[in-house]
Structure formats: C-alpha cells, structure tokens
C-alpha cells in the first residue's frame, strides 16, 4: 500500500504571534517551528503503523522553503520512507492543495491532519480530494485497512460515524487515530540517508489575497470570588462582564 502524508510546519505552541506588512503577513522572526501535531501524532503515525502491519511505503509531502527540511527529516526519523518538498511558499490552502495534488497520483491513501494549529483552516484535505477526484473523510479518529477496503470512524456531533470506503481516498486525521511516536536515535540517523526529493511547484494562478490578520482578544484576567459571596458574583456578571 502506498500512503502519502501531508505535513505542515507550524509555530511552536508557545510562540508569540505577530504580523508584518500592514498585518497582511505572519512575522516569522524569532518564532520556533514544529511539525503540525495533527499531521505528526495522528496522520503520520497511523500511516507508519499500517505500513508496519500491511507493508508498503509512507511518503511525506510538504510545501515550503528549504528551512522546512527539518520537519520532513523528523517525519523520516519517525518512520516515513521518503520525503517530497515542493519548493514554494505556501501562499494559501488552495495553493498548497494544488501542489500536493500534483504529486499525489498513484497513492492508495492520502492523509492530512484535521487542521493546522496556526490557521486552523481544515481546508487542504478536502481540496486535495477534490483535485484528485477522490472521496474525502474528515476528522477520522480510527482507520483500519483490509485489502483495498478501509473502515473509518469519524467524530460527529454527539457520537461517531463508521464508514466503509475503498481506496484510494483522502482523510483528515484527528485525535484518537494513533499515539504520538517519538523518533528514536537510529531513526534520526537513518533519516539523513532517506530520500528527500525537492520538486518545483506547478503553475497556479492563486486568487487568494490576504486583506489583513488580527489577533484574537487577549485572555481576560480571572477573578476569584468567594463562594459565600454570590451577590458580588452576580454584580460582576451584570456590571463588568455584562452577560446577565
């Protein structure tokens, strides 16, 4: 079975987020990056588990500059067999999906994380499926494969939904799909020797233009109210929080 896992590079969870160029671009200076946890912990690890039990290969793909190679190397260290980096700035979800789709022919399964932890778009997986004209299962929490048939469990409001689906298809992986796997020393050494192919982007007229970014409101201060003083709590909820 040939599996392709899409991996993104996202800011580390404690990074301070700032914008530049009139709030139209993310300011990367001083920011440490990691592999998007949904891509790493769930999509990639499940793909590797299936490779280990069923055979085949796992390829990872990323759209980004050479500084993203460290993220691909980490995926190879965890157990992927080869990496592809599309040498282009990931301008928008649609642009990224187009580039991935251009390299995703011939795979039985294509994985994304359910979302990236920076833009939280949850868009790329569905767009790749559309470009490939393949089915798409979102928010998958469990995946079993037998032959060319897969059973996928996904979270839905108030419960879960189990689907049977034939390969090839695209899915986005959510928590529950697998357990985080930490690369071991041999994996880290082997990663340097595994192929990492850098490919040129396909031409694409990206229509997405960012008008501006804004940060969410700062977290408000928490006030502790004595449980015996309900009058004060009601007053604050009315006068300060204005929710009553």
């Amino acid at each position, binding site marked *: 079975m040939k599996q392709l896992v899409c991996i993104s590079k996202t800011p580390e969870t*404690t990074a301070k987020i700032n914008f530049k160029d009139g709030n139209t671009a993310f300011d990367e200076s001083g920011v440490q990056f990691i592999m998007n946890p949904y891509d790493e912990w769930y999509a990639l690890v499940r793909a590797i588990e299936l490779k280990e039990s069923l055979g085949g290969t796992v390829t990872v793909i990323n759209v980004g500059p050479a500084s993203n190679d*460290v993220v691909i*190397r980490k995926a190879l260290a965890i157990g992927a067999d080869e990496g592809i980096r599309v040498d282009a700035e990931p301008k928008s979800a649609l642009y990224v999906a187009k580039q991935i789709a251009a390299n995703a022919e011939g795979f039985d399964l294509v994985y994304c994380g359910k979302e990236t932890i920076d833009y939280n778009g949850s868009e790329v997986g569905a767009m790749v499926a559309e470009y490939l004209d393949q089915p798409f299962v979102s928010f998958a929490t469990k995946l079993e494969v037998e032959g060319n048939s897969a059973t996928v469990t996904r979270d839905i409001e108030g419960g879960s939904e189990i689907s049977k689906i034939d390969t090839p298809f695209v899915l986005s992986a959510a928590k529950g799909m697998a357990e985080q796997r*930490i690369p071991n*020393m*041999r994996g*880290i050494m082997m*990663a*340097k020797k595994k192929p990492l192919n850098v490919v040129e982007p396909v031409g694409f007229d990206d229509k997405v233009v960012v008008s501006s970014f804004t940060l969410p409101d700062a977290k408000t201060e928490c006030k502790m109210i004595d449980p015996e003083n309900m009058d004060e709590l009601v007053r604050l909820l009315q006068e300060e929080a204005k929710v009553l």
Partner: protein
Amino acid sequence: MAKYMSMDNLRFVLHEMLNVEELCNLPRFSEYDKDSFDILLDSVKGAADQYMYPTFRDCDHDPARFEDGKVIVHESVDTMMKQAGENGTIGMTFDYEVGGMQLPHTVEVACGHIAEAANNNLTGYTGLTNGSANLIVTFGSQELIDTYVPKMLAGKWGGTMCLTEPQAGSSLSDISTSAKLNDDGSYNIVGQKIFISGGDHEYCDNFVHLVLARIEGAPAGTKGISLFVVPKNRIQEDQSLTSNDVITAGDFQKMGQRGYCTTHLVFGEKDDCKGWLVGPENKGLKCMFQMMNAARIDVGCTAASVATAAYYASLQYAKERPQGRRILSGGVKNVEAEQTTIINHPDVRRMLLLQKSVIEGSLALLLQCSKYQDLAEHGPEDTRTQNHDLLELLTPIAKTYPSEMGRVSISNGLQIFGGYGFCTEFPLEQYYRDIRIMSLYEGTTGIQSLDLLGRKVVSKNGEAMKLLTKEMIETIKSASNYDDLKPYAEKLKEASKTLESTLMHLLQFAMNGQHERYIADATIFMELMSNVTIAWQWLKMATVAKTALVTGNMTFGSEFYENKIHTMKFYYKYELPKIFSASETLKHKDSLTILEENKAVLA
C-alpha cells in the same frame, strides 16, 4: 503543561554560543548535522513531556522503598528504562561498534538537561547504567563487554557504582570489601556497600554493579583498590540467570529525590558472590575516576536542571499572584487600585533575576565543559591536551556551582511563593529538597574544593589556569567591541586579576610548607573562582546576544537577546562583587578553622 525548561535557551547556548554543529566536522561525529541534533532534542523533550514531567510529583509522593525484601519504585522507572533502551539514549555517546550512537557529550548533556528538569527522580537510573557500561567498555575485556553492555544499553539491565562503605565515604582509601581470586579467573567478593543509587528494583532483570574492592594482599590505601563487575544474577551456560549472592539489605529514606532508590547491598554473605576484574589490578580507583569526572558534570547538570524547573515554576507564580500595589512616584500607594501581580515588585524581580542568572550561567558552563570533553577526546590532535586541561580544571566548578548556587536560587524561588512555597501544594519545596543532594553526590563541595585548589589549579605548573585566563581574555576582547559591554569586560578583567592575586597569596602557604593552611579555606576559593567563571560565561553569552542584535541575525525574538544582556548586567551588579569579600577572607591573616592543640573552640 507548565514550562519546566527553555528549549530556546538551550538552543541559544548550543548553536549560537558554542556552535556545537562544528563538532560534525570531526570524523567521530560526521554522521550528524544541526538538524539531527535539533530533532533529537525535540524527541527528548517529547518524551520528557509525555511521561517524565507528569510523574515528577508522584515519584515524591509515592517514594522508592524497601518492602518485604524488595525495592519498590514508581512505575515510571519501567517506562524510562524501556523507552531509553528502545530509543538508544542510554548509550548515545558510545561507539557504534558497541551499540552506541557516537553523539557528542555536549548533545548528551543537553538532552540530560531536558530530562532532569522534567523529573530528576528518574534520570539517575539510566545515567548510572550509562556510566557503569562506559567503565566496562573502556576498561573491561571483550567478554565482559559482550556479556553485559548490550543488555545495559537496551535498558534491560541496570548499572550501579558501588564505592561507599559504612566506614568509608569520602575517604575511599579505607574500603574493606575483599576480592579473592578463584581458579576460573573470577573473584569471590565479600563486603557491604551503602548509598547505592538505583541498586535494585523490579523493572530490570538484572543489575550490573561496578564494585571497588581489595584483592587479597593488595597494598593499603588507594593503591590497593581494584574494580570489579559484580552482577546481581550470574549468567549460566544456558543463558539463564541465577543468584550471585548479592542481597539488598535495605534502603535509605531521603529528604529529596525520593523516587530514586538508594540501597544497602551485601555481597557474598554465603561466600558465593563472583566478580570479574575490570582494568588492571589495583588501578580500580583510577578507572572509576575516569567515570567520576563525567558523573560530576552530570550532577552539576542535574542541579542546574532542577533549579531551572524551579525558576519557571516561580516565574509562573509571580506572573499570576496578585499582591500589594506598586509604589508610585512620590512614595505613595493607590490603595483603591487593583493589586498588582508580584512580578512587578522589585524585590521579587531581583529574586527571579538571581535564579535566571544562576541557572543560565550554570547551563552555559556545563555545556562549555562538555564541548571541551568532545574536543579533548575527538578534536584535532594538537588541541586535545589543552581542552583536556580546561575540562579537568573546570569540572569541580561545573559540579559545585550549580549544586550550591542552584540551591540558593531555589530558596529564592520558594521565597517568591511566600508561605505557599513551604506547602506541598506547590512544587518548590520538592525542588528544594531534591537539589540538596547535589552538593554531596560524587564528592562533596569540600572534596571538590580540595580538588580544585589542591590539585587542579596547580597541576602542570598552573598550565590550565593560564589556558582559562586566555579563554577569558578572548571573551573580554570580543565584548570590548561593543561600547555598552566594555564596562563589563573591564569588570571581568578586574575579577580575573583578583582571582590570580588571591591564588598567588595562598600559594605562598603551600610553598612555605603550610599545606593545611593552603587548603583550609578551599571552599571559599571555590566560591570565588566559580563566581569569576560564571561571570565569564555571562559575558560570553551577552556578547553573542549583542552580536545578534547588531547584525539582525536572530533565531529568536530581539527580546530574548536583550534579556540575556540584562541578566548579564544583573550578575555583574549583584553577584560578581562577592568575589572581593571572598578574596578578603582568603587573604585574612587569621586562620580560624585550623585545629589548634589544647584549644577547644568548638566545645
């Protein structure tokens, strides 16, 4: 999850200050590059987040203990040994040929820092396994290596160091455990060892004890001590294990590191305990001390790491705890205003800055020493000796400063919590108890100070001291390129001269045959020299930070680099001046601690 260490600071020291990736140009480390080091650090942080930090408090609340003849330890020890074995972290600096990964010591210490900050109760189990396996690899026969090392590096068998006996602690020349040669080349071992860390528990199939003992007829004192491998269980011909007459007689309940078992072992009670010689006869102490230097760096690193975790806990609390109001201009307080968080009070900021200056200064020195070790062992031939000499000189400081000042730093952190710091609800009390052992492990502060003043500063006619001065001059020169760092470069120059003049003063006693007077205040000398050494490290960090700010070549935000310079300034204002009072004490004409006959001062 609460922050317990800074990956940014670790990367800053490794990459920007020490340029650790230049080690990859050496044949020994040519398989690696910067990315592979970073992936490794991330994976260690992942493991530390996953199972080490979450069990830090549990290891204390559910301590290691001896019950019904067995040593019970927290189940996270099982996870630790298995994961470390599977991930290859136990033997990360060992040769490929023996199953290691040939990583630099610098990277190993960096990984250790992450793990020790997460949970210092666990790391000794793998650390001692590493150390004892290293002794076997370095001095043992091929048969011993093949028999023991693979299982130790796989985390299946634990390793220990058995030095101390009930009557012989710091004075190892008095050990009495005996070894009698058998016809098959093995030795019968009889004796008792105490304070054996990680000596026994249910999560390893076997324990490989590295035991100091005297072969029958050996000379008295340290010249008659040999080193032996003594497994808890012997391997039979069919590879099954059988008891080797090593009995765990009990354990020691401690004030800190309560998750890290400390055992009392009895060897050969039934006269059926076999050991195998490691290294030459009567050279056991020399062999052991090769490991001991690395162990001292490890202890220093653990101390720095525990103090680091305490700093981040204090910092978080100071940011969240509202108390009091700032004094406004005019000296008044607006009592109607909301309380401010305590991080805004100068005295709290002073304590936090003290913590930060101690932990980051310590870590920089420890990694600096580790790089000296890598270069001493694997660097260009013509630089090995000088790197070795610098490592030897600085090892007692790298062990002692974090242990002593780390404790002071945690005490200040505890103070920030007010009364809550004294309560078990918050982790500071545990950090305070845990770090206390560090100035005792692997040679007390007194022993380290004797080693520094009595041996290291004078070895090779003071050659190592000259090398250290040269290193400091390099830093002073670099810092002097920036106008705002020049005053601090001058202060380091002055401090270096104070160190030199104080040493010269003391040396007169040694030259006049007053050896006890020479070393009587060795611990004060240690304080002085440690302070100057950490000031050197801070100026080095500040210069790197300044360069990053000036050139704009920054991996982290500008705030990070500015904070480095600010903390250096704090160190130079609040800590470095203490060397002058230390110098005054050392030069004082009275020798008040030397025993005088017929004068019972301490009655």
